[in-house]
């Protein structure tokens, strides 16, 4: 074997890492560029404001999917936010350093790794069948709460933990109860971090498909109540791709999804930058 000089070796390695970096960005640009280039021209006000007709050629737009997605996010967040923040407060402020607390932390980590379709099976067994919610937005939302909970708990707990200990002590020494300290001192300080976590969960809800595919039923009709079925935008992309030949409309719906994710991504970035500016400004 020829022994390469360290300098040459470094050149080769640099070439490889540059190639890896460029390929990764290229993949992103190609995928997003392709979907936007093919999808955006199909999007019109009519496309956004008519509901899909459910036919084989994919007639209609995506209105009922937008409505179903919004309903789903609203209900999911209404349950997820108090539950997730409450759990984070417990873990960060109250939980004793015990075996049981460690078990809870392990559960949060393990739950975060459970595949979406397994949550789907669980939701199907519990919410759709056992609780008789049938295929519905409510069943989908409850399933989604289980799926997103570990992510919100983690980010909220981290946000709470970054609040300086002195602030807690100052509040307590003024005679505030522990809960008053949490509500009036810790929560306001941790809020930007928690909001970032919430926005990321909204992004997760928008992108999610597998667990909703098996709990919401996929009806293309306009949802009339929480107990009616529905399909989110992401699930609609799947239906269009697999059951119709309207690939252009699938790409258009994909473009709408990418734009939504873009907005969500940018707003978290903006928020965390503002947070950093505030922190380094010295409060």
């Amino acid at each position, binding site marked *: 074997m020829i022994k390469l000089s*360290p300098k040459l*070796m470094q050149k080769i*390695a640099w070439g*490889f890492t*540059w190639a*890896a*970096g460029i*390929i*990764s960005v290229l993949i*992103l640009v190609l*995928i997003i560029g*392709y*979907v936007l280039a093919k999808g955006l021209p199909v999007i019109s006000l009519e496309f956004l404001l008519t509901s899909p007709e459910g036919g084989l050629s994919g007639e209609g737009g995506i209105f009922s999917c937008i409505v179903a997605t919004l309903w789903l996010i609203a209900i999911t967040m209404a349950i997820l936010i108090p*539950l997730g923040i*409450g*759990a984070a*407060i*417990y*873990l960060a402020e*109250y939980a004793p350093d015990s075996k049981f607390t460690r078990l*809870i932390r392990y*559960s949060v980590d*393990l739950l975060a*790794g*459970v*595949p*979406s*379709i*397994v*949550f*789907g*099976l669980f939701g*199907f*067994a519990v919410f759709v069948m056992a609780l008789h919610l049938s295929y519905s937005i409510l069943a989908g939302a409850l399933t989604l709460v289980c799926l997103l909970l570990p992510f919100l708990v983690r980010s909220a707990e981290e946000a709470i933990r970054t609040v300086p200990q002195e602030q807690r002590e100052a509040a307590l020494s003024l005679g505030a*109860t*522990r*809960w*008053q300290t*949490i509500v009036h001192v810790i929560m306001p300080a941790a809020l930007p971090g928690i909001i970032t976590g919430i926005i990321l969960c909204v992004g997760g809800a928008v*992108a999610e*498909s*597998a667990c909703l*595919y*098996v709990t919401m*039923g996929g009806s293309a009709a306009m949802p009339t109540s929480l107990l009616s079925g529905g399909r989110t935008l*992401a*699930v609609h*992309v*799947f239906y269009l*791709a*697999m059951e119709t030949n309207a*690939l252009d409309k*699938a790409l258009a719906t*994909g473009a709408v*999804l*990418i734009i939504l*994710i873009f907005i*969500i*991504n940018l707003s978290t*970035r903006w928020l965390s930058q503002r947070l950093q500016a505030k922190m380094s400004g010295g409060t």
Partner: protein
Amino acid sequence: MPRYFVDRLSRHTVSIFGIAAFLILVLIALFILKDSLPALKEVGLIDILFGAKWYPSHGSFGILTMLAGSVVTTLLALAIAVPLALGCAIFLAEVAPPRVRSITRPAVELLVGIPSVVYGLVGMIVLCPFIARLSGTGSGSSVLAAAIVLAIMVLPTITSISEDNLRAVPVHYKEGAFALGATHWQTIYHVLLPAARRGITAAVILGTGRAIGETMAMIMVIGNSPIFPTSIFGPARTLTGNIAVEIASATGIHESALFVTGLVLFILIMLINGIGLIAYRRRV
């Protein structure tokens, strides 16, 4: 004093919320196990796990082909994604000029958030026809297409966690290596990578879990035939796809067999992530 009452009430409330994650995990295990029992009793665990035939209408519920499908596509995807992700992580952490990095890093992060159906869609429209032309047979819905789509999907996850871990290596390690006359690459290869080994392993394990659990994108590009993945140009089916494709129309033992599929998937993921967590948390 009402405020002490509020204090106590709140503490109890958040304590109950605190165990929610644990409770959900236990409930998932229990419910999936419970609904698996009919098939486990009727067909038997061995016949399901090692049966090569999945013909629900004939009472055959073997999931070995799907288990093989999941494992083969995941391993192929990792073979593509891990070298690329590591290269990309080293690039971002050590090599890239700040201006290039300021574009690449957000781009990689954005890739994580894109819905899996979008990857599946592009794979279906662009990749599958290309593979069909390459192989000369079939529709292109294949193990190879699935592996490439999966690789692209786990790439950003493995990249960003590996990069974080490379950056977390104390700077004096690097300074020490430089002081001994090592080149930058020698420092990366002999000092930084070994020091970040545990975190990089965790990143790969996380990516493995993601890959095995991916569902919709796999259904879109793999062809979904419950046969062994004997050729990379041929179709196969994953465990996840088996559940999603059939659950709506299944009843009785068939439905229960799908819960067994989910149970196998759940145990597989718990093993992978459990090992990953323990390996990561040890001796940190």
